[in-house]
């Protein structure tokens, strides 16, 4: 039960009623926000799961190709072949607002002299497997970037949902019941005071009436007495 430390006054009651109204409206809004976020989050998470599975599988194929390539070439030659890249990647990041959560959106441009020629080495000293590996990696990279985008979004949304859920629960199970309890307490106390006042007034009225009645009676008695006393000698 909530500990009651409010002073039972009308002003406090008005204040608490306002507070309760705000809390209830906030609770409804936050609940809506949580539901919508959850919907978006679950969509994103489903996408992340399937994309991650794809990316992991494809990357393993790429790693296999590289292993084959490195088996056919000396590691020095391999390192030399890949030492200086021909293309460069530039990433621009903008952010998108989903239900007050800022999630990243990535755009990337590759800078290369020609699209067909991404191999940063001559073909004479390298094996064909290396070409395959680099080619496959270039393809999987698109997906990896998409994965980065949605996986980060999912993480950020998870955080926001957790926060919102806590707020909703705090309002629903602590704030609102406590305020209602306090309002009830004040109303009862005020009513009790009212009744006490009424009773007291009735009692006072009674006493005053009795007093005046008594006074009147004694006056009448006196009058009768004097009247009677005056008549006797006749």
């Amino acid at each position: 039960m909530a500990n009651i430390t409010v002073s039972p006054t009308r002003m406090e009651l008005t204040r608490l009623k306002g507070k309760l109204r705000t809390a209830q409206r906030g609770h409804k809004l936050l609940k809506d926000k949580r539901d919508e976020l959850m919907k978006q989050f679950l969509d994103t998470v489903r996408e992340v799961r399937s994309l991650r599975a794809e990316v992991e599988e494809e990357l393993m194929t790429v790693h296999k190709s590289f292993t084959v390539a490195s088996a056919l070439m000396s590691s020095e030659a391999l390192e030399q072949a890949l030492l200086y890249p021909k293309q460069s990647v530039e990433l621009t990041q903008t952010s998108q607002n989903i239900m007050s959560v800022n999630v990243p959106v990535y755009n990337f441009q590759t800078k290369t002299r020609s699209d067909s020629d991404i191999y940063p080495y001559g073909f004479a000293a390298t094996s064909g497997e290396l070409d395959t590996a680099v080619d496959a990696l270039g393809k999987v990279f698109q997906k990896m970037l998409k994965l980065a985008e949605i996986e980060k979004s999912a993480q950020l949304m998870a955080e926001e949902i957790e926060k919102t859920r806590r707020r909703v629960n705090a309002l629903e199970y602590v704030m609102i019941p406590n305020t209602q309890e306090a309002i009830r307490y004040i109303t009862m106390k005020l009513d009790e005071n009212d009744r006490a006042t009424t009773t007291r007034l009735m009692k006072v009225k009674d006493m005053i009436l009795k007093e005046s009645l008594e006074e009147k009676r004694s006056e009448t008695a006196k009058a009768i007495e004097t009247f009677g006393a005056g008549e006797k000698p006749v």
Partner: protein
Amino acid sequence: MAATYQIAVIGDWESVMGFRALGLDTYPVTSVEEAKEKVRELAKADCAVIYLTEQLAKDMEDVIARYKDELRPAIILIPGREGSLGIGKNNIQRAIERAVGADIL
């Protein structure tokens, strides 16, 4: 706010060398300590996405958790040469549990 950022790949040399051909910034590291240091350094610099091999990630949870709730950088786990350890998939699972309070998928 469309600034340009870098994409970094951190892992053992065999796992990251291929990404160099694509023009990404590769940082071959040999130890977990080195990788942690590199992640911190890149997070301060202009790096938006860091791909990290799972072999390294399994021993540096603390650093990854540190950047989890920030917009930049996004640390994304990729399987290294030795194969997937399932950490990436586990992380999705944990994000769901965090949001929903229970594992629902």
